[in-house]
């Protein structure tokens, strides 16, 4: 028999330990299908590590992949802290990218130090405004934001496709559904020569510190935490609950929008409808893995990015599908969710005594 006994709040070191154990458990569990695929587990994981950390190029590729994940992870974390369930980071990412393209493909001629901030702000604003609708519907009419934000993702993606095949299509693109390229003055500069890693990473890290500071140190952050933990008590204490939700919605959408800006203006250079392989959804996993901590989000994003990049490289070398990456990430999320149980409860295994007789 197994018995769960509640335990006092866990220490930070214990929480870290459990998170690491969960990641490890995910790798062990993911090894089982690898064995079925006829792979040598150690070799495969070795290839993955090499693919993510084996060279400067591999490492920068991993960081490049982590950049949007940090931002969408922050978008989810800050919203979930307030119990605003924003599942729409994917859509907010795309409108952010769309806004970046609208501003940054030659419509405005300005030097880089003007145009780059402008592009970032446009993307943030677009993402934030997209989140404003569901937030308003939630606070005014009680509409479930899980549904509205999730469904908006599909609407936005279709809208982007429409724009890319219509008004925003690149006339020089030989009919491909893609936008005009971002002009050089609007592009986020590369961090290293001949590598794809760009200033979006710096932006993401700064955002992580900024969100940490906001939640921990400011009145707004205090109000966000209070509303998230107990909205009734917050309202009773005179905290503007509706306004707080609005701020959180704007911030969350803006962070996801900046992720879109980074992808389009830092990495790809133009917008296509396959800009994001689900960064918005992965952001939710990142936030959960990080326990909604803005600093933790960075590490969770690095973990997930290294698995994605590593698995890509491994699959090229072995011919095994890179779906394995999705499998490991899903395992990691499940393991972390289960590990929450170990943080809250002490688990005791009891060898069943002749209890039946004793009870009779």
């Amino acid at each position, binding site marked *: 028999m197994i*018995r769960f*006994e509640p335990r*006092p*709040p866990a220490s930070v070191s214990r929480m870290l330990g459990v998170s690491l154990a969960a990641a490890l458990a995910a790798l062990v569990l993911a090894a089982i299908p690898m064995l079925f695929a006829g792979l040598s587990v150690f070799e495969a994981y070795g290839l993955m590590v090499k693919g993510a950390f084996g060279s400067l190029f591999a490492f920068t590729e991993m960081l490049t992949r982590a950049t949007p994940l940090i931002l969408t992870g922050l978008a989810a974390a800050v919203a979930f802290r307030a119990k605003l369930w924003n599942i729409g980071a994917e859509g907010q990412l795309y409108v952010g990218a769309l806004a970046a393209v609208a501003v940054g493909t030659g419509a405005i001629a300005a030097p880089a130090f003007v145009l780059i901030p402008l592009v970032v702000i446009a993307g943030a604003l677009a993402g934030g405004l997209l989140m404003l609708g569901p937030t308003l519907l939630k606070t005014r009419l009680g509409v479930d934001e899980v549904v509205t934000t999730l469904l908006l993702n599909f609407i936005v993606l279709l809208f982007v496709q429409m724009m890319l095949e219509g008004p925003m299509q690149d006339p020089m693109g030989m009919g491909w559904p893609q936008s005009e390229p971002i002009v050089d003055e609007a592009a986020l500069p590369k961090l290293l020569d001949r590598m794809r890693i760009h200033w979006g990473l710096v932006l993401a890290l700064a955002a992580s510190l900024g969100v940490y500071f906001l939640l921990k*140190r*400011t*009145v*707004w*952050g*205090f*109000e966000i*935490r*209070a509303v998230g*933990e*107990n909205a*009734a*008590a*917050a*309202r*009773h*204490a*005179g*905290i*503007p609950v509706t306004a707080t939700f609005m701020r959180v919605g704007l911030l969350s959408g803006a962070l996801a929008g900046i992720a879109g800006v980074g992808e389009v203006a830092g990495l790809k250079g133009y917008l296509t409808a396959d800009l994001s392989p689900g960064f918005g959804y992965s952001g939710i996993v990142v936030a959960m893995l990080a326990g909604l901590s803005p600093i933790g989000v960075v590490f969770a994003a690095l973990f997930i990015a290294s698995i994605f990049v590593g698995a890509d490289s491994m699959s090229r070398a072995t011919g095994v599908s890179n779906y394995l990456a999705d499998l490991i990430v899903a395992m990691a999320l499940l393991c972390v969710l289960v590990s929450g149980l170990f943080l809250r409860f002490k688990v005791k295994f*009891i060898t069943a*005594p002749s*209890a*039946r007789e*004793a*009870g*009779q």
Partner: protein
Amino acid sequence: MTDPIQAAETVLRLDGITKRFGDLTANCDVSLDLARGEILALLGENGAGKTTLMNILFGHYVADEGQVYIASPGTGLSELEAGSPHAALEAGIGMVHQHFTLAENLSALDNIVLGTENLSALTSARKPARQKLEDLIARSGLSVPLDARISQLSVGEKQRVEILKALYRDARVLVLDEPTAVLTPQESDTLFATLKKLADDGLAIIFISHKLAEVIASSHRVAVLRGGRKVADLPTADCDLRKLAELMVGHEIVETVRSKGSPGAPLLALNAVSAGEGRDALHEVDLTLNSGEILGIAGVSGNGQTMLARVISGLQVPASGTMTLAGNDETGANARKMIDEGLARIPEDRHHDGIVGAMSVSENLAIESIRKPQNQRFGLLRFSAMRETARRLIETYDIRCQGEDSPARLLSGGNIQKIVLARTLDPEPQVVLAAQPSRGLDVGATSDVHKRLLAARDRGAGVILISEDLDELMRLSDRIAVIHRGRLSAADPTEALDRGTLGLRMAGQSGEAA
């Protein structure tokens, strides 16, 4: 009366129960016997270990030391498997928790039958179940609409469902955790009448309480817990209020005595205020609160008290009528504005509305004034100032906690109320709205609340005291008004009122004649 031969038959024995949570010893070597047909009151302050002890009995916790023995029909006492609610149920122990464990969207019948049916059976044998329940209801007087959804039932009815649930499973020992905490005085009386009847039929009953009057009125025997130890176990007939109170608290009780107030100018006025709809609505309420007085609002729960508190707190905009505070029109003001205008609010549900459990004591103490300059500068929190204030308030208001940074949810009910009191009363508000301020609190914490309210009055504040406890109202209030079906009677001086008159007005009779 109980048959003496039956009464001697022990059905339950706790033997040397000890339970520790970390450094805290919740129960220390507690032994207890319970006889068939006996009503035992388990008395103690909050945190004395009553609930822990009963949770061990029911298998929610495992005792570190000691055993539970229970008698099966026809045989003697045998050891109960520790840590298994299933075994406890099998052995005939029924428990009614303070917070009900009912599925709100199922009918009363479904809730009672839930868990007793064979999962692999294709059909649900509701007919015999209903028959058995109807017999039980007829015998015990626990009238419950079996087909109504739980969400439609009153608190008293829900509790009856819980008791029926235990009886349906042929409980021979019934444990009730603070059964009257959520009941009106009338509902409490009905409950105890029912319990007496059940005990006469042979049921052994333990009820947990910290209300002395009901213990004396309704139990055969009292066991007093203090600091996890059993300090007394004696027939109720040998007890009086004072003796029990001293056993429970461990020292002599000084009753709060109200001196004559000196009411001044009107502070808060409600003029023909109507708000809300349904059972808890307000209808054209007039109310005037003067400085330097405590105005009591008496009434049976659910007659508009909650709405009245919400309107005054600034959480509900009245549909019509006006509200003024110190001469300023506040109709439609929000909570923030009311706080800023000098209104202190003590919410009736302190866990739900009073504190944010996951935040620290110091953050909870600052939450109402978080935008004031003492707590922030340019939108940045001033942690050291917040902590300093918290340490001072913890000291002044005697908040028992592990420091200002510990999460508020770890505190006991009394200490949570002290957080609310400290936060609301420290800025010396001109009006205090106290809704059910002592509900669920033990003697010590209650007298602390009373002292704070009287102190606020004595420095010139006006206090509105909404309570269902007539003794509390008569002791503290300078004037008392009665709320019934959303209408508020005129407030009369307490000296001109007695319990009988108030009781009649609470029942909605002769309210106008008085």
